[in-house]
């Protein structure tokens, strides 16, 4: 395989990973707080639609903001129904996904009825850093992307900093690990949980808009193509940490990009093999990380075995 091909694969990987990173960071907050959002797919696709719709008359930035608000509203709905009214988290997640998929298609069909050319909006302009962008292999991948890609990077760093340096991050972890104790300590688990869900929703909406406004410039039904579910796998694979999630998303993006472009080489395998390749590898990585995590988990306990490293010093 040529260097051009690898450059293309890398650049494609980063584009494909961007929405996964953004939605994954959001879901990372949600799962860290002990909740689960199975509605990401619905939030993403409705965000993807609303982004194009709003951007078509109000511009790119308004489109992005509208998509975030869309995800936020769906997340607020989910919070109300699940955590206030006591509905089942999984059922509601599936319902939100159904709603998002249905509503986005419905509104799209009304907006662009048969016989009209699809509405397209300008996508976010790509960066061109001249010399840097011209570096072979990594130049286009690292320095020739749309600002949304760099936005995702900033978000990942921000999420990392929130967990590392803020009380909120600590409270999220505490609420997820042990809500009863956290509440006894004076943290409000419901409030923290709701906040993470809203963050998760807003980022899922944004992730959807990154697909339509970042690379396509138009909406078409089912454009998210199951990415909302992949996000769940990536979050677990990344052990719910921002860095892990970013790596997991990049890995999936790379696998997808690779299996798309490997088809254009001389290696001819059944196309279905290429299509399932990213999922199969993700499963394998999931197995490896689960196993490693298990070992690490046990290892940590063996090392700091109670009664050995610590000792009470009676006065």
């Amino acid at each position, binding site marked *: 395989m040529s260097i051009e091909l690898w450059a293309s694969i890398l650049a494609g990987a980063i584009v494909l990973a961007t929405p996964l990173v953004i939605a994954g960071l959001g879901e990372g907050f949600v799962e860290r707080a002990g909740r689960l959002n199975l509605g990401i797919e619905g939030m993403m696709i409705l965000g993807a639609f609303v982004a194009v719709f709003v951007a078509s008359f109000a511009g790119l930035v308004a489109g992005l903001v509208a998509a975030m608000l869309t995800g936020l509203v769906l997340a607020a709905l989910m919070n109300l129904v699940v955590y206030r009214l006591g509905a089942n988290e999984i059922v509601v997640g599936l319902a939100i996904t159904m709603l998002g998929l249905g509503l986005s298609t419905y509104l799209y069909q009304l907006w662009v009825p048969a016989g009209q050319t699809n509405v397209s909006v300008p996508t976010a302009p790509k960066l061109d850093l001249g010399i840097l962008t011209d570096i072979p292999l990594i130049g286009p991948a690292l320095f020739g992307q749309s600002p949304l890609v760099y936005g995702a990077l900033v978000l990942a760093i921000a999420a990392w900093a929130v967990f590392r340096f*803020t*009380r909120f991050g*600590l409270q999220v972890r505490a609420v997820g690990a042990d809500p009863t104790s956290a509440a006894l*300590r004076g943290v409000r688990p419901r409030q923290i949980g709701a906040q993470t869900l809203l963050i998760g929703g807003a980022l899922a909406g944004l992730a959807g808009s990154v697909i339509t406004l970042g690379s396509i410039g138009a909406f078409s039904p089912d454009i998210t193509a199951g990415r909302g579910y992949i996000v769940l796998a990536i979050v677990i694979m990344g052990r719910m940490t921002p860095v892990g999630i970013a790596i997991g998303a990049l890995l999936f993006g790379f696998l997808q990009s690779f299996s798309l472009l490997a088809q254009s080489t001389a290696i001819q395998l059944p196309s279905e093999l290429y299509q399932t390749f990213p999922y199969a590898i993700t499963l394998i990585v999931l197995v490896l990380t689960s196993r490693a995590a298990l070992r690490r988990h046990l290892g940590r306990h063996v090392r*700091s075995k*109670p009664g050995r490293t610590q*000792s009470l*010093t009676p006065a």
Partner: protein
Amino acid sequence: MTSTSSFETGRALVARSVSKTFGATRALHDVDIVVRPGTVHALVGENGAGKSTLAKILAGIQAPDAGTMTIGGAAYAPHDRAAAKARGVNMVPQQLSLVGELSLLENFLLVSPRRLLRRRAAHTLLSHTLERADVDVDLTVPTRSLTQAHRQLGEIVVALAEGATTLILDEPTASLGPHEVGGLFDHLRALCEGGTAIVLITHRLEEVGAVADDVSVLSHGRLVHHGPAAELSPDRVARLMVGELPPPAERAPRTPGDTVLELRHVTAVSDTDADLEAVSLQVRAGEIVGVAGVAGSGQNTLMDVLAGLTVPRGGTVRIDDLDRPRAVDLLERGVAWIPEERSDGLVPSLSLGDTLSLYDNAVGSASRRPKERRDAESTLQDFDVRPANPTLAAGGLSGGNQQKLLVSRELGTGSPRVVLAYGPTQGLDLRAAQAIRERLVAAAESGAAVLVASHDLEELMQLADRILVMFSGRIAAEWPIAEVTTDKVGAAMAGLNSTASSTTSPTTATSTTTPTTEDLP
């Protein structure tokens, strides 16, 4: 009430006519309490008397239905724990409130007033507090990996660092060994010198005399006595709480029969307790074997191996003539199991009746015991489970009553061949604890092999025919009851003779080494 200086009453935490009702339960009924600065105020009472409820109200965790509270005369009506903390009232709940995934440092920062964490400053503050309290606990490992005792002490330290002027401790000693309790009480006294008021809830009445200045006795939600602790003997407190107690039955001589359960050179790993290293042990029919040891010395691992819940890495386990029994084989052969963590043995959503008949229903008609069909309600009454209503959910009972329920399922429905019990009376009031001890003795008398692990040495000495001491996953010492003294056991629990003695023979275990400081872990 003793006379107090106007300065002290001036800062006292006072509650008047506090009442609290949960559904049909009147947990508190017109209770008054005055907590004076610089004193330890013991709060005692039977299981379900309302101690924890009163404490939670003082600490802002629950709101009273009626009544008023003041601090230093100013109205005090905290709407949550943060509000109480702001007024200097802090609590270490009966169920510890440390988040296991987080270190003590992070548990402290969790509710800090700042949005951005200042780890370094917090670390300095906590280290300083540790130093002052003369405790050594690792601040940076997840508290989950600390021993129960260290978590307990750690949470107290966190509460202190948060700046408590009134500190409420709900049964801090229930799971501590004698050394740890001694250390804790020293800290408490030191705190009082500094003017802190301490509310201490406990079931160990001898502690009242040892450490408390004032004592309040609750019974069925009412305050039945309050006054200086010095005037009260443990017996008197006990009588106040529960009326006259029959003295513990005389120890009847028991002759052990055949070996029922046997471990040989068993090694086993655990991720929450010490690993077992070459543990050999026999439990014979009709004897009670006591297992002593500080928390995390491997008692939990030992119990799990004996109950078939952990598969050993090496060595043999045998019941009767069955090798490597599975947990279900053991159940079928009549092994009763009372785990340290009572929630392990109870399904909160099952009703009391279903809990009692769980083994019969779930293992099928070929049940382990030829069970006399006594109805659930009378079993519950026999074991004094309150309320004795078979249709209630197990999760709704108070901690002590859950323990009684667990014991009644394990011991109450037939005659077990083996009884494995870890802290069987933990968190129980005197009468309930005595009743359970009698059950264990009765089981042994009717031929069961009984193994009891406990942090309460008193209890072991009362029950056991033989005492083993565990240290760091080994059996460090073993004596027949006649040779046991508190000092010997205490030394063995601290590991003072374990390094030199690789055998469990009582003579070598006690006579070989002179303790040196290097042997301290």
